[in-house]
């Protein structure tokens, strides 16, 4: 990768470069998705990296791996992936891409129902 841009040294290379390597599965991913939007998580394992400070904007010095923990639904019906940084516990939400791994997305969506804290049989009567 030859995209070490010295003029924008404050921004990490992984943000500027055309590709990034997934911190979890090692897949080399192009930073721009097929539909032209910028990608911020690996389409294969949905893991991300904590390179942007989401509170104040700009780069973050954490660089921790961010693992997907949940799927949220906006009022518009779009799905968002909630990421959690394994180093600093920061939470972020990112929109999903069309080529994201649907199996992992569905697995996160149905995960609460697989381990309910109370019996779900009672809801059959409602």
């Amino acid at each position, binding site marked *: 990768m030859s995209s070490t841009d010295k003029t924008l040294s404050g921004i990490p290379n992984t943000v500027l470069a055309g590709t990034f390597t997934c911190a979890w599965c090692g897949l080399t991913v192009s930073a721009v998705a097929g539909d032209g939007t910028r990608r911020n998580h690996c389409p294969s394992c949905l893991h991300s990296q904590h390179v942007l400070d989401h509170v104040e904007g700009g780069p973050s010095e954490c660089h921790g791996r961010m693992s997907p923990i949940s799927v949220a639904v906006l009022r518009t019906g779009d799905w968002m992936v*909630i990421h*959690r940084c394994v180093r600093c516990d920061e939470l972020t939400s990112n929109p999903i891409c069309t080529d994201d791994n649907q199996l992992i997305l569905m697995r996160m*969506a149905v995960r609460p129902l697989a381990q309910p804290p109370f019996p779900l049989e009672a809801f059959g009567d*409602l």
Partner: protein
Amino acid sequence: MPRRANNSSRRTRRTRRPQRHKDVLHRQGGHRRHDFRCVGCRLDVSLDAPGTSHRNHCPNCLASLHVDLRIPGDRAAACRGRMEPLSMSVRPDGEWMIIHQCRSCGELSANRIAGDDNALTLVRLALKPLRDTSIAHRTLLQL
């Protein structure tokens, strides 16, 4: 609500680790511990929650208030916005976590559910991604 009495529940209860110790500040006189009225449904909520040492959301509508920054009870956030439940997450040990999002600043936070939380509201929140069937339909077609 009765506890499930089959084998899987016994197994998870045995392997579940106890709650991690947290320095909840109201125990140490950090701020005045008091009951509160929910910002969403105006329910008067007592602070004694079964299963958790620090209640941070309304057991009826699951709404919360953006008052704490990192430590439960530190009251360090200046926002004071209303936090609404966004989605449900599951920890590796099977504990349900509510992801709250602040309506005024967009901050996210994850909170454990309490023992007296409204089960119907919890399940409705957990089923939210599956309500719209188009994505689920597309997923099942791709498998």
